[in-house]
C-alpha cells in the first residue's frame, strides 16, 4: 500500500491499471508476432515504415478481430459513459477515452497518419479547449443542469429507434457496399500529402483560410469587455 493513499483511491487505481493493461500489452504482443515471423519482417523493411508494416500484418487476421472488439468495446463503453455522466468534467474525461480508442481503430484500418492526427489535434487540442471552456464558464466544475425524466425517456426512445433502423439497414443486403477488405495499398503520409497538394489543393487552401478566420473570430469573441 502506497503511503498516504486511502483504500478507495488505491482500489480505483487498481481498476484503472487493469483497464489500461490491455492497451499496452496487446500492441506489444502484436509487435512480437511481427518480429517472430521473418517473412513479414522483410515486408516491413520493404515498406520502410513500421506502422504500415504493423497494419499489414494485423489486418485480416485473428489479431485484428481481437483488437477490433477490444477497442470497439472501449469506444462504445466510453461513449455510453459520456451519456450517463452528470458533470461536464467527467463527460470530458470519458470523451478522452473515446478519442483514444478511435485513434487505435484508425491504426487498425491502416490510417496511421490519421490516428496520430486524431491523438494530437483531438485529444491534445480540442479536448483541452473544452476543459478550458468548462473552467472559464462555471463557478464550480461540478455544475449540473439536468434534463427531466420525461425528456430523458423521449430522447432515449428516439435514439434507440434510430440505432435499430441504422443497424438494420447496415447489416442487411440492401446496400451494395463491398464488405471485405480490398487489396488497397496502405496509404502512406507521402500519398496523403501528394493528394492534399494536387487533387485537394483548393479545399486545403480553403481550410487554411477558415482556420485563420476562426482564430481571429474566436479571439475577438472571447476578449474581455472594456
Amino acid at each position, binding site marked *: 500500500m502506497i503511503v498516504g493513499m486511502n483504500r478507495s483511491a488505491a482500489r480505483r487505481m487498481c481498476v484503472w491499471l487493469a483497464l489500461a493493461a490491455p492497451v499496452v500489452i496487446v500492441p506489444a504482443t502484436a509487435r512480437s508476432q511481427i518480429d517472430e515471423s521473418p517473412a513479414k519482417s522483410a515486408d516491413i523493411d520493404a515498406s520502410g515504415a513500421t506502422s504500415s508494416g504493423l497494419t499489414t500484418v494485423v489486418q485480416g487476421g485473428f489479431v485484428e478481430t481481437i483488437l477490433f472488439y477490444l477497442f470497439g468495446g472501449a469506444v462504445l463503453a466510453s461513449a455510453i459513459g459520456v451519456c450517463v455522466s452528470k458533470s461536464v468534467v467527467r*463527460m470530458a474525461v470519458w470523451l478522452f477515452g473515446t478519442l483514444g480508442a478511435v485513434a487505435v481503430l484508425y491504426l487498425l484500418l491502416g490510417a496511421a497518419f*490519421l490516428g496520430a492526427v486524431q491523438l494530437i489535434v483531438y485529444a491534445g487540442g480540442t479536448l483541452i479547449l473544452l476543459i478550458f471552456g468548462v473552467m472559464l464558464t462555471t463557478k464550480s466544475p461540478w455544475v449540473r443542469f439536468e434534463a427531466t425524466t420525461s425528456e430523458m425517456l423521449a430522447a432515449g426512445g428516439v435514439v434507440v429507434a434510430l440505432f435499430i433502423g441504422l443497424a438494420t439497414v447496415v447489416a442487411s443486403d440492401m446496400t451494395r457496399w463491398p464488405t471485405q477488405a480490398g487489396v488497397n495499398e496502405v496509404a502512406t503520409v507521402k500519398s496523403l500529402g501528394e493528394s492534399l497538394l494536387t487533387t485537394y489543393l483548393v479545399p486545403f487552401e480553403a481550410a487554411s483560410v477558415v*482556420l485563420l478566420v476562426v482564430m481571429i473570430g474566436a479571439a475577438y469573441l472571447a476578449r474581455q469587455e472594456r
Partner: protein
Amino acid sequence: MFTVGLTHYLVLAAAVFCCGLFVMMTKRNAIGILIGVELLLNSVNINLVAFDRYRPIGGTDGQISALFVIVLAAAEAAVAVAICMNLYSNLNTIDVDRGDALHG
C-alpha cells in the same frame, strides 16, 4: 461472421452516433452539447476511414475527408467555446435554455 468487415465498423459508428445524439438532446450545459457534437463527428470519421479501407480500388479520398473533418471540428470547438464564454459573461450561466433573448 467472426472476421471483422465493413459492417462491424458501420454498426459501431451508428452506436457512437446515437450516443452523441442522446448527449446533444439531454444535456442543457452548452459545453456538454459541444461534447455531443464531437462524438457525432468521431462516428462520421470512423465511417469515412472504414469506407476508405473496404473498397475495391485504391486511393486516399476517405482519409483526406476525415482529415478535413478533424480540422473543421477543431475550428468549430474554438468558436463554440468563445460563444459559451460570451454567453456566460452576459447571462452568468451556460444553461442553453436561458439564452432566449432572440425568442419570438
